[in-house]
């Protein structure tokens, strides 16, 4: 049987080609755009050394209801634990009382040895390898803290970008009520555009996007103003996002 959408395909493309094949402009002001425009320039701006970028990133993240701290690499585990204990003390959501933390595979986190250090502090990392049955999803969804690394962090907006992959579940940054971002300073970029240019220059941008299945930019906690324009956090994704930024000169 012929694919009914193949007729639709050729008909749609033909209908578009008709007006576009003429040499006059299809726009009111007579413009024509025959060649691709240059790669867009940066919309935002940020400058400074990595420490300055780290604090700028943090300030921007605070501006969108997130939080941050800049710590020594050796101190990361202690600060992560402190934050988790603090959240546990405050949460009263019965859905989220389980003990473990939903995490990327420790090998995918930007700090070796973090897994054992957290375990010593009484916090176990739960790393799902398959979330396709209802039971494993419900288990993952019952955890109230998620821990992930980042592919890049952007100082001018307080955003991060995460790619999904083996050992890098989407769920860890999405299902829990609280999200810890581990941000090594070497992953800080002034702007989206500076990161895109770096990846493009390395020849890997398109590959990075397609290989992952999903790439997501995250800028602060989940939010809504749908009820009387009042800001509410944690609508579907995490209601709090905390970045722990650290310098890791020797990796």
């Amino acid at each position, binding site marked *: 049987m012929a694919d009914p*959408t193949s007729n*639709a395909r050729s008909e*749609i493309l033909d*209908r*578009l080609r008709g*007006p*576009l094949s003429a040499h006059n402009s*299809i*726009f*009111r002001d007579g*413009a024509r*755009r*025959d060649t*691709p*425009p240059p*790669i*867009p*320039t940066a*919309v935002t701006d940020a400058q400074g050394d990595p420490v300055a970028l780290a604090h700028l990133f943090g300030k921007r993240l605070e501006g*969108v209801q997130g939080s941050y701290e800049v710590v020594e690499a050796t101190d990361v585990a202690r600060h992560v634990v402190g934050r988790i204990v603090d959240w546990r003390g405050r949460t009263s*959501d019965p859905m989220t009382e389980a003990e473990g933390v939903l995490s990327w595979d420790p090998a995918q986190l930007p700090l070796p040895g973090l897994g054992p250090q957290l375990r010593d502090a009484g916090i176990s990392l739960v790393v799902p390898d*398959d*979330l396709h049955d209802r039971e494993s*999803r*419900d288990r993952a*969804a019952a955890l109230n803290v998620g821990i992930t690394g980042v592919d890049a962090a952007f100082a*001018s907006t307080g955003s991060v970008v995460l790619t*999904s*992959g*083996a050992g890098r*579940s*989407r769920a860890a940054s999405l299902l829990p009520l609280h999200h810890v971002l581990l941000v090594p300073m070497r992953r800080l970029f002034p702007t*989206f555009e500076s990161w*895109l240019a770096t990846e*493009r220059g390395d020849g890997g*941008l*398109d590959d990075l*996007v*397609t*290989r992952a*299945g*999903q*790439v*997501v*930019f*995250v*800028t*602060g906690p*989940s939010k*809504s*103003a*749908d*009820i009387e*324009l*009042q800001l509410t956090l*944690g*609508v*579907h*994704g*995490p209601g709090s996002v905390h970045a722990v930024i650290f310098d890791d000169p020797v990796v």
Partner: protein
Amino acid sequence: MKIDVGATYDTRVRQALDDERLRLALERATGRLVERRAAAIAAVDNDRFRNEARAVREYTVQHLPTLLEQLEHNLRRNGCHVHWARDAGEATDIVCQIARQHDVRNVVKSKSMVTEEIGLNEALGRAGVKVVETDLGEYIIQLAEEPPSHILAPAIHKRAEDISELFQQKLGMAPSNDPAHMCAVARRELRYQFLGAEMGVSGCNFAVADTGTVCVITNEGNGRMVTSMPPVYVAIAGIERIVPRIEDAVLMWQAASRNATGQDVSVYFSLSSGPRRPGHADGPDEMHVVLVDNGRSRILERGYGDALLCIRCSACINECPVYREIGGHAYGETAYNGPIGAVITPLLAEDPLSACELPFASTLCGACRDVCPVKIDLPGLLLDLRADMTEGGAGGGTERMAARAFAATARRPRRYRWMASVARLVTSVFSRRNSETVDTLPPPLSAWTKTRAFPRMASKSFRKLWSERNG
């Protein structure tokens, strides 16, 4: 008071103007959005921003067939199923078919204009599939069985106590008017839906031709949920919603965010390029992309290429003095309202005259053109439409649009009736409520109203009164 979106335009506008609560809510919402947008725009080099965004969109629309083929090729390479739909019926059939193949009973959906345009929820409902809207505002109005009043804030006409009552009734919530509490209740309820639904549906803010990627913008995270949790993910994309490269998508995302809500960027920007890869813990097993024409190629044929540049940010809607008075419901049974809605609703339609009042629901003040991130000359397009609709184009040129078709069908009495109803409408919009006079009229009539009030047209024409009395 509810506005009957199926009523005549006159009636809808009158109902909207008489609804004090709706007017106040709209004033608050649009006022806040306008203020935030202005601050977000003042922080950047907006001339350059707009020029670059415009250039990307112009290139895209001018090369649409090539980019669509490239997009299709790359989506398939990434493991996606690609479907083409000429019209709403084909599009909804395709989605219903996918649902049937997978025995889908429950669909979670993130907010999307194009799915509203094609009536997807209704079609899935007829096929026995339950669709849950997952954007908080959309969820509220779905529970209340009302249409959205604003593209970005669909439940803006409802007070916290209305929503509380609704949640108590439908979700068994304990009494509370606290938005944070209501939000937590909705989170729990919708979380259950996300984890149990067999299919997720989203629109598509931008599709990247170079990589075969569907980009979805949300603040709440429902876009991430519907693209990640259910085993089947279906993205519905208008065929003009393409950008050539990843960098262009990141630019347009920033343009949409700053101009829609005044954020630097939305909280989430999800880029999906196919089903989950081997070894990944989550993500859909199947991803489908439905490319929908439904009148878009007709817009190009009718000579209105500019209308396809739109990125649906809604800045023009918030700025529009007419929209701020009458709200979205008054634009009738269309997914699109405000100035851009007044342009594309008649243009998307097979018969543009089915929405012939809309191009007249504008003062042509130019605020929409000034804020548009891709510099669409909306007042210019509205003028062209008016010209094309009335006579076949005093200024528009006969090659534009359906002038010929219109001239053939519109006999004089019909056109007279239509023009008269337009005059009643325009004067009723511009007159203050309960006032018999109009303080400001759009040019060229503004020359008159600058110095004096223009009498509001009688709500019933002499012709109508005559035929009622003698009919």
